[in-house]
């Protein structure tokens, strides 16, 4: 190794300075508010850009993943009456798909946002692992729940249709930014830690 000519990325501080320079150029035609804000945070930013956090990876075919957690954002046009049906369905469940959704075991959250006069839907969720690891299991075990929700989507072929995965990929937009506070904690791990914490508390109570 020692005899090889030096190559690879420039020293970190140079790379950092370069990125800061790039930001300043980018913000040159921003509003004064934007410019001022950039200058105010630039010191903090320079330490972050020179020592970047763990990289965001791909969550399989599409989507971003940080550690064990992936994001999925889908924007779809809705069929006429679709928004009304889906909204009423969600409201009947208190806007909350628990306990059904809890059974999936990898879903941390889900949101359904109707916009453009109920003609479009933003569906966003975060989950453990890659995008399509368990998709066949969902198709096998909860096909009707998926179709109940997705039948509001224009062109939805049905979850049992071999084209369903391609439909999802086509309508998914990978997030550019993706932050997870505890990227290594899966839902199963969180639940295990909760159980362990409770058991430790009980033990501590007993030995007092």
């Amino acid at each position, binding site marked *: 190794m020692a005899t090889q000519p030096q190559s690879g990325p420039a020293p970190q501080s140079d790379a950092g300075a370069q990125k800061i320079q790039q930001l300043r150029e980018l913000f040159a035609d921003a509003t004064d508010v934007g410019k001022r804000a950039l200058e105010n945070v630039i010191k903090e930013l320079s330490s972050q850009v020179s020592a970047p956090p763990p990289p965001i990876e791909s969550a399989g075919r599409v989507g971003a993943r940080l550690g064990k957690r992936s994001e999925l954002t889908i924007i779809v046009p809705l069929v006429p009456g679709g928004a009304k049906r889906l909204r009423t369905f969600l409201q009947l469940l208190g806007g909350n798909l628990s306990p059904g959704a809890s059974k*999936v*075991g990898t879903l941390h959250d889900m949101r359904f946002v109707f916009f453009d006069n109920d003609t479009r839907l933003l569906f966003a969720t975060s989950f453990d692992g890659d995008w399509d*690891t*368990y998709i*066949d*299991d969902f198709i096998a075990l909860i096909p009707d729940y998926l179709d109940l929700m997705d039948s509001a989507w224009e062109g939805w072929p049905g979850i049992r249709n071999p084209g369903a995965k391609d439909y999802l990929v086509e309508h998914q937009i990978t997030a550019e930014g993706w932050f997870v506070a505890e990227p290594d904690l*899966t839902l*199963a791990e969180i639940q295990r830690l909760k159980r362990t914490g409770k058991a430790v508390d009980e033990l501590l109570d007993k030995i007092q």
Partner: protein
Amino acid sequence: MSSVNESAAASEAAHESMLDLHEIQATVLRPRPAPYFGTHVLLRIDDANHGRELFRRLTPHIDSAAAWWSAKTPWLSVGISYAGLKAVGLPEDSLQSFPEAFREGMAARARQLGDTGLNDPKNWDAAYGKGEVHIGVQAFSDSEEDRRRILGVAREQLNGLSVSILAMQDFGAQPGDRNSLGYKDGIDQPAIEGSGFDPLPGQGEPIKAGEFILGYPGEAGFPLPMPQPDILGRNGTYVGFRKYQSRIGAFNRFLQAHGNTEAERELLAAKLVGRWRSGAPLVLAPDLDNPSLGADPQRNNDFNYANDLRGRQAPFGCHIRRMNPRDTKLTRLTDVKLHRLIRRGTTYGPPYDPNALSDTDDEVARGAYFLFISAKAMSTIEFLQQEWINDGNFIGIGDERDPIIGLQEEGAAFTIPKDPVRRLVRGIETFNVLRGGEYFFMPSLSALKWLAGLHQ
């Protein structure tokens, strides 16, 4: 699994099959004989015409799965890699109709398979992972004499052809039908709907044939995508071929470090797998081995985990509970039937030696070649490697990995649930190291003839 042949009830358990058994290759459905003897041959095609000529010559000697439950040995089967299909001049649109992972090959999928570190393709035996393995021929037999004869038949077909033998490896039964870590193996196989034979007790609800053989409806109700044209895909399947080297020195040192007596070591060995070395499942024989149970195919797989919800008998992380969780409550919504493989384990090298303790013993060539067979073998193997082998999250045990075939990280541990508190056994190592692997397409007999006749 020889049980099927030996069973007095065999004739009663056989039905008319809903599958084209005369088209499907024997190895897909026929259980390994007991005892078993065989050879793997890996070939490279150096001339497209000669490659097709080899298929033409070989096909009459490839056995079908007709009456697979009672068929006599020996038999030959053949698989073709993506590079092999290219090498015989399969047209481009047909090549593109194969799944992406198959086209890329096993080595290129190392990231998805978690084949890193010790298992990284750069550490594999020379023949593998370079796109040079075009054909895999398997000879199975119940005697050494027949093995030699059938292998001779296979080799004769190569005469005068520009086809190179890259590797040839004999495999065979160890005393007592044990594998290279000393366990009786190959006991639990998925039951396939319509395959013509009643499942053995404990084999579980039959799984739709389309999960294992192309052209039939799968669990989702429709057939999986099939390579085109139809004649090529139908009644074919995929094989994940993986060569493992058993590090029996490391394995024995681990048992020695955590068991003071022979009995303690054997119990620990059983906890790792979920079965005693005899094959007797811990769920049915929790405290002491029961060799007659292990040897009885009507009983040695006839269990579920309903009475072992807390893993006190078979630890959650043990090998067989991972590879077939049966009714275990999993942390994720999972249909266990979608993640099963037909396994043909073929052990090679000297038998297991409980006294082998050195690093040198780790490098004695012994281990197993596995044929993992399924109509979606690539995605199932990737799923298993990611979820059920090199992780423990699915069954609620954090980052722990399969103690037998997992790739272990520094300081890895194995949890044995126990009252009043669990036992955490540390210092588990990678006991089986991957030394090579390829994906093969195992075509129907008609597809083999069709391939032989390409460009005529």
